[in-house]
């Protein structure tokens, strides 16, 4: 198993201790990785794996960079 990078944006950083990047284990679905990282999947509007939009059931591979866009900033 390798690693991939999660890049939470906007309010999602609040669920990642303010970090811009979290290293996660690859080989699992994005949904599981989010849950394991403490980021609620239901607050992620879109996920981009290497800049391509993917759904949350996508399996994360080694070295991938996943940008996570929050549903909305303010409300």
């Amino acid at each position, binding site marked *: 198993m390798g690693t991939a990078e999660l890049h939470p944006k906007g309010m999602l950083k609040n669920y990642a201790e303010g970090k811009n990047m979290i290293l996660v284990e690859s080989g699992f679905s994005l949904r599981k990785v989010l849950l394991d990282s403490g980021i609620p999947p239901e607050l992620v509007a879109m996920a981009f794996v290497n800049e391509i*939009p993917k759904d949350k059931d996508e399996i994360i591979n080694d070295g991938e960079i996943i940008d996570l866009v929050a*549903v909305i*900033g303010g409300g």
Partner: protein
Amino acid sequence: MNGYGGSILRVNLSNGQLTRFPTPPELAINFIGGRGFGAYLLFKEVTKFADPLGPENKLILSPGPLSGLMIPGAGKMDFTTKSPLTGGYASSSLGGMLTAELKYAGIDSIILEGISPNPVYLFIDNDLVELRDASEYWGKGTITVESSIKDKFGEEFQVAVIGPGGENLVSFASINHDYGRQAGRGGVGTVMGSKKLKAIVVHGSKAIPVADSEGYRKAGKELFKACKDADGLVPWQRYGTTIVTSWCDEVGALPTRNFSSGHFDEGKSLYGPVMREKIVITDKGCFGCPSPCGKYSRMKKYKTNVEGPEYETIGMLGSNLGISDIEDVAEANRLCDDLGIDTISTGGVIGWAIECFQKGILTSTDTDGLGLRFGDSDSIFKLIHKIAFQEGFGKLLAGGVKKAAEAVGKGSEKFAIHVKGMEQSAYATHNATAMLLAYMTCDVGAHHNRSWAITYDLQVGRELVVPEKVARIIWLQNFRPMFDVLGSCRLQWVELSIDRDLYVPALEAITGIHRSWEDLEKTGDRIWNLTRMFWIRENPGFNRDWDLPSPRFYSEPPLDGPTEGQITKFEDVQKLLDMYYEQRGWDKNGIPTSSTLIKLDLAELAI
């Protein structure tokens, strides 16, 4: 006056009289501009019990103090009137370029009153103001008319125009501008049509005075920099509001088959990336926008173009009608825009009609021979035409879903999805109590823009009924619509999460008046209560029942999707209202108390 055009234009359509008077400084101090001006002028000038389509009703257009200036998204303008759809307060916001041009012509509000004997358009070129014959444009679609007017006067003229829907007094007619922007909700286009005013054509070239030009430049640059540096800028520009389509489907908020569900099995074909790949040809923004969210699309199947569709339209003309082809949704969007009717209300009333047909409440005898079913885009396109021209069965639907359900009866009122007569916009609220309360208490009816709280539901627990949720709704209602008062777009704050405090020095440098967000929220609270008093004044017997949602959300749990089996209990609906009224300082029937009105400097309205 710094930050203002300096004058208010009164247009009497009945006698053709045009008068311009200085913008009263106390109006600017107490109500600031935009939606604030509209609410004040509506309450003060429209006589009690005025017929929304009569000469005594007024349509008030107002930019704000930020409009037309170097502030992100400062291209917003408010349209206020007494709604022919709801009988209460209507306010609809329009983006594009019109508001800047109006400010450059030195105008802070236009008050349209009376009824013209013949179709006319209002022509404004700085100090030249005229009503001109519009007979050549009457009966034509919005796109054709805007294009013809621009061909005639030049691209520097900005145009707001109604379509056949407004001319034919469809209760939810829109006002179109810039080939694809709308003041869509509440029937502002209907009122314009009732006045026989086809279009407003504006050009201005005057400077807007600012109090501190150096401070203004500095604050403006900081706002633009914050937008450009924002994390979410790239995806927001690429997908715009469609960024939430997949999310709504995932969390059970995507209105599906007349809000009977919050999940659409074929929803993936409507998601933002699919739309981008299949039909979007370019991005489009409003005046001064660093983060253009508009999308211009080409429907190859129909050989047509449209600006859009945005999320709300995808929800209401797509999943809510069972349509899964994004090209069909975009074509329905184009028809509504060109015919000048609101896409949200159109989707709401057609969804109800299809459900009536499926349940046998309506038959093909009622529908001019049309067989109605979810997913049948051909019959839906025909219904859109029938509504815009008030033709046959379309006449029933043109009054809006509340009146249509009252006329048809047979239990159809239970699945007429509206609050106060306004069709609910595109968030299914079976189990999202904050968003449900937002719709119930919105000042124009079931619209999302005053308090978009569905994320908050997800963050804190969607079924919770607690005072903190209510407080959040009230805060959003006082705060978010202040962007409509200031004349700038809220989406830079909402979607890009820029710090709202960056607006404070900008507003101060422009107007010369320091206002903290606390001050601005107090003004928001004042306007909220003023518009509430308008509803009460115009509707004898107004009480808490007016704030109830569609019974669907407390009695019919969805049969599928993430909210399967979930509803908000009716006792919780009432509990939400009780908490809301208490926190607002209103009585048990939702009437502001005297002490609340006095506290908000509205003592003269106390009953």
